């Protein structure tokens, strides 16, 4: 895997935000959302980014998408056109899809905005097939679909411009437990089928362990541990990683019977 082409090179990236003023005449305090973060993303990898609220994982995702600029350091994308080649799927498909648009228009929006060539009608059918939705979905509206199906629509939209990197920002957290596995299986099939590099931002460590080869553990803006998923889950080195892993409720860890 180390031979594979480098897609993202993140070097000593820091991103700070100014907080709202708490006193009229006082200075605006700053918070460092991402603090001197460096890592490499190679083609074909599945990278998990885990951390709790405030860890900086969402800011890191925005830096990769080019939606945020670093205050210090550099994010280098080695592909041709980042806005086309790096796509994202968000947590809540209900709020990510325009309720007034038909599915075909939602899916084609990036193609239209970026003026990509090709037969659009055919592209919609390909994408609906790829995400396992019936073709007649094209003319329906998002509210006619279940949560899992709406996430499929969002994934189809992300795939429309032929991305190389797909970023999932908590892509199954808002879904019913009985539907999550379908979407995880779909992401895995698409990853293999379309040769995608996958970045999965998630707080659910079991999802990351299942899906990812490599993990970044973030805490307070910094990467506190990084490595192959198996090794990190088997023998975490950092105390925070250990706390995180110990905190996961497990099916096999039963409370001692009280009666």
């Amino acid at each position, binding site marked *: 895997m180390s031979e594979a082409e480098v897609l993202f090179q993140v070097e000593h990236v820091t991103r700070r935000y100014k907080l709202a003023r708490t006193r009229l005449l006082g200075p605006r305090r700053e918070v460092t959302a991402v603090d001197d973060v460096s890592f490499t993303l190679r083609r074909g990898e599945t990278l998990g980014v885990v951390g709790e609220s405030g860890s900086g994982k969402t800011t890191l995702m925005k830096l990769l998408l080019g939606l945020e600029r670093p205050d210090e350091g550099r994010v280098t994308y080695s592909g041709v056109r980042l806005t086309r080649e790096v796509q994202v799927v968000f947590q809540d498909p209900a709020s990510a899809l325009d309720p007034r648009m038909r599915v075909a228009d939602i899916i084609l929006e990036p193609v239209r905005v970026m003026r990509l060539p090709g037969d659009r009608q055919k592209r919609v059918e390909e994408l609906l097939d790829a995400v396992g939705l019936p073709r007649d979905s094209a003319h329906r509206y998002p509210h006619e679909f279940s949560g899992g199906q709406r996430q499929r629509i969002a994934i189809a939209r992300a795939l429309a411009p032929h991305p190389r990197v797909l970023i999932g920002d908590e892509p199954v957290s808002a879904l*019913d*437990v009985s*539907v999550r*596995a379908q979407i995880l299986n779909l992401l895995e099939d698409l990853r293999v089928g379309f040769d995608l590099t996958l970045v999965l931002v998630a707080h659910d460590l079991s999802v990351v362990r299942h899906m990812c080869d490599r993990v970044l553990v973030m805490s307070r803006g910094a990467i506190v541990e990084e490595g192959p998923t198996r090794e990190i889950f088997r023998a975490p080195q950092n105390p925070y990683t250990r706390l995180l892993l110990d905190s996961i409720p497990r099916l096999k860890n039963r*409370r001692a019977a009280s009666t």
Partner: protein
Amino acid sequence: MADALGVEDLHVLVGGVEAVRGVSFALEAGSRTGLIGESGSGKTLTALGLMGLLPDGISATGRVLYKGRDLLSLADEEFCELRGDRLAMIFQEPMTALNPVMRIGDQVAEPLMVHRHMGRQEALAAAMQILQRVHIADAAEKMRAYPHQLSGGQRQRAMIAMAMACSPDILVADEPTTALDVTVQAQILRLLDELVNEQGATLLLITHDLPVVASTCDHVLVMYGGKIVETGTVAQVFDRPRHPYTRALLDAIPPLDEELPDRHLRAIPGSVAGLGQFPPGCPFRNRCPTADGKCVEMPPVARVGDHLAACWHPVGGEP
């Protein structure tokens, strides 16, 4: 052991549609029971129904037996006397339960003044002790804080303090840790466990999260489509599930402690139906691998092996 609470044939109607369709169970005194369900399973309406907290326009029928009385037949004032005293509830989002314009100390003191008839000073002193008990750092300072000044975990602790102030017999917790980070979740679950132990309360924990139930509860109820489909001890249900839905749920969770041959999970086909759109008969039959013609009739909750399940074709065969 005696039952602390009995629920008999509870139905909850939402706009003429039955969302909870005849649910019966008993909570053994001192037990911790996990009520597992997805969206639309009726788990939250079951909890609100037995607490007498259903909003206007949603009605419950059936019986909820507590100390020989049917709570559903009580007058509002009588139910109010019990609620917050003998029966308490905590919610997923503390901001919906806490009063945003009232100081934390006053909110925790309130049930003591109402139910224990304490004076304000006495109640505030007791509230301070309870806040310390739930491990709120700087309890004296937090007494004077408003809910928005607390972190999510602290707010959840404050709500638990309110609920536990009068040492209730029954504590109903509806997704109490779902909105929290995993390390805070672990702290809150540990705290609930300690308090329930200390006070000898009976816990009903409502959640969609099976591992949370496994690590917190001794008994489990599995709901789907407004019905209880399986119930038993945690070991019985999780180690040898008999209902295909429970089996499928357990299989669909990415395992933490074992390796799968590849990155494919055994997914459950289809999606959870909307309110009133579950198929007649067994609500799971349109997603079930073993359903057949017989399943158009709702199977009764019956003994299968060492516990109860509602299925014509239970996993692992007949008893």
